[in-house]
């Protein structure tokens, strides 16, 4: 037998189109069966209680990155968070920080995508491509393993204290994406592209307080990428000073 327990959900309601209304928490009481996820409850609230509630969702299996939000103070994907995992029957839901609220739990991710595009997130080649695949050893491929797992959900972007005080900062996801290409044995991006992040807006802006690692639902460690890029930049500077080659 499955028995349902009573939960109280407090969800932040806000609307960019109604700037005069201050954001407020709205309370919903629902019965929850074991195993139900926060996304499962959100869908039920929108269906059965309040059709005006807005939130994003799609894959419900933690791969599409749509449903990042703050759940009882912790940033995570609503679809992979079990309601019963908090040891309390009150669940508070808020939109991701560091971005403007469009409506309720939906934020405007334009700045996040702008930062992503800034780092030129694509494979850059100078050599002519071979007829078949560009050879890559298993070891070379494994260097980019963790960065490939990024689903661009912006959990890290919402958790980053640097973005909170400096919206010009590129942020963890964009820098992790850059490192994914820098570490790719097939990528031939000119050094000058790294200079674009050799500043406080880029790799030197990071506080290395690891909030992004804590927030990542896919076990990516964006701080590793930032440290890796710093090392690459310092190495390049040393080579330039001493005139040594790579």
């Amino acid at each position, binding site marked *: *037998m*499955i028995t349902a327990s009573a939960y109280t959900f407090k969800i932040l309601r806000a609307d960019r*189109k109604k700037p005069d209304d201050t954001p407020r928490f709205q309370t919903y009481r629902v019965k929850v069966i074991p*195993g139900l996820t926060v996304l499962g409850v959100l*869908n039920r609230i*929108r*269906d*059965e209680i*309040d*059709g*005006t509630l*807005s939130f*994003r*969702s*799609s*894959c*419900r*299996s*933690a*791969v*599409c*990155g*749509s449903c990042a939000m703050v759940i009882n103070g912790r940033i995570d994907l609503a679809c*992979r968070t079990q309601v019963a995992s908090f040891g309390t029957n009150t669940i508070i839901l808020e939109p991701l920080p560091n971005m403007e609220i*469009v*409506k*309720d739990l*939906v934020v*405007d*991710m334009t700045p996040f*995508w702008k930062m*992503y*595009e800034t780092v*030129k*997130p*694509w*494979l850059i*080649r100078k050599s002519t*491509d071979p*007829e*078949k*695949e*560009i*050879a*890559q*050893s*298993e070891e*070379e*491929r494994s260097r*980019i393993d963790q960065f*490939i*797992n990024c*689903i*661009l959900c912006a959990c890290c972007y919402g958790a980053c204290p640097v973005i909170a005080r400096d919206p010009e900062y590129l942020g963890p996801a964009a820098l992790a994406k850059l490192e994914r*290409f820098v570490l*790719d044995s*097939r*990528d031939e991006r000119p050094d000058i592209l790294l200079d674009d992040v050799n500043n406080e807006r880029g790799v030197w802006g990071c506080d290395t307080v690891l909030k992004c690692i804590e927030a990542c639902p*896919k*076990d990516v460690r964006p701080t590793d990428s930032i440290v890796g890029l710093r090392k690459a930049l310092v190495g390049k500077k040393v080579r330039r000073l001493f005139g040594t080659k790579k």
Partner: protein
Amino acid sequence: MMTVSHDVVIVGGGLAGLRAAVGLCRKYDVALLSKVHPIRSHSIAAQGGINAALANNPDSRDDTWEKHTFDTVKGSDYLADQDAVEIMCREAPGIVYEMEHWGCPFSRFPDGSIAQRPFGGAGYPRTCYSTDLTGHVLLNTLYERAVMMGVTVYPEWYVTALATDDGVCHGVVAFDLMNGQIVPIAAKATIFATGGYGRVYFYSTNALINTGSGIGIAYKAGVPLKDMEFVQFHPTGLIGTNILMTEACRGEGGYLVNNKGERFMEKYAPKAMELAPRDIVSRSIQTEINEDRYFEHPLGKYIKLDLTHLGEKKILAKLPGIRKICLDFIGIDPILEPIPIMPCQHYSMGGIDTNARTATEVQGFFAAGECACVSVHGGNRLGGNSLLETIVFGKIAAGAIDEYLSSGAAVPKEKIVIRRAGDLEARIAALVSGGTEKTFVLHGELAKTMSANVGIFRQRTETEKALEEIGRIKERYRNVGISSPSRHMNYELMNAIELEYMLDVAHTIALGAFLREESRGAHFRTDFPKRDDEKWLKHTIARMADGTNPDISFRDVSITRYKPMERVY
């Protein structure tokens, strides 16, 4: 009303749509509309791989595209159009190399070549992969390419209607979710890459966005649909959530086990075992469940997918995503315990009727990917062929549209698009002042009737029941209301609009299943358990006739080299 115009409008930001956009954006003014940000598209969830006869695997040195073609045709139960399958399989190696050159991080063999694994129904290990995240890496790669090339994207713009008139397409009516505005978009060429209809079923591996509304929108605009009764049920959906457990689990050596501890596939496919095609494995699992050789879970009856003998190292290296999903969603570590699975709806073989150049009967309207039916999958799709289809036919669509535009396409009539936008305005007004019926209630009833009556095993009385039920839900749909007139980020409104199309899509599936009195591929009729080539070696074509009922006709299958034989695995 603001109107927009482009040379080409692409609807859908998954693999097929992005590949078409990348192929067209340098030469034409292209706009890509997607109801979610493109990177959230359901292509992202594909796990196991993409088929191409690269012959990289030491066990596949003599693999060829012709052998890939044969496997695909046999897997389709001879319903696929063989000329189209030849095109797809011949293009496959080039497509995989192109994606690799664009940065796709495929897993590698020790010699540095793209790794390939065995998959169901394939004579050779030809499925190229990136661990168990192949869709994720392919979608990221194509999106990166689209960003590099500056493709114009309208993210979270939902298309509600196709503006056709007299056999010509003039564009689409779009709804900008973020701003809540209706925008008519005129275009010389329109392509739908809107994905499948999994959410018409109650048990589905599909994302919540996979309503199939694109297919329903085309159908309502007069474009015929093809082979809608062919619905793929994936053998291994996680119990409860129905999240996909990739075929690669079995490709890497996983077993299916019943409550007697038997690897029961030896009864059904003694040679191929767990790697028989999906239709056969799903029926085998369902038979084991129906004959009481199942396990019990509070969430339902299940069969075990056992990976434990593969060992920690192999699971972490080849199936890390599966392990993480199991840990996150059911608290099971597949290194230590078998995974509880059941078959559930997974893929739409049928869809918008296109030719092998992605063109439809309507001038200026094209379709590619899961929403389209070329047909390269016929009665049953092989694992690893859907990612392939999206990219191959996305690319072919770009070429076909280029030809169409450079040979003097019709000038789109803005007036017609604006008129259709007016229809949406009226529709929304009706929903706002609407009745007491709720979208989610009707959707739930539709999905339950489809899973119960048009599932893995079908029979006349059940399909009749489904048709009656769909008719009743359609009646009730006329009385649907929504709670708020506010238009921006109003998902309740979008769901209500989409349900109309879901009902039409379900109607064509159930009617096709009712009419086809044979068993072929994924369509299994217990009252007609044999394939009947004499009567039924043909495609089902469904057209919207009187605004309510589909008008059904049939079309011959294109057969080039492979005469239909009995399918034994």
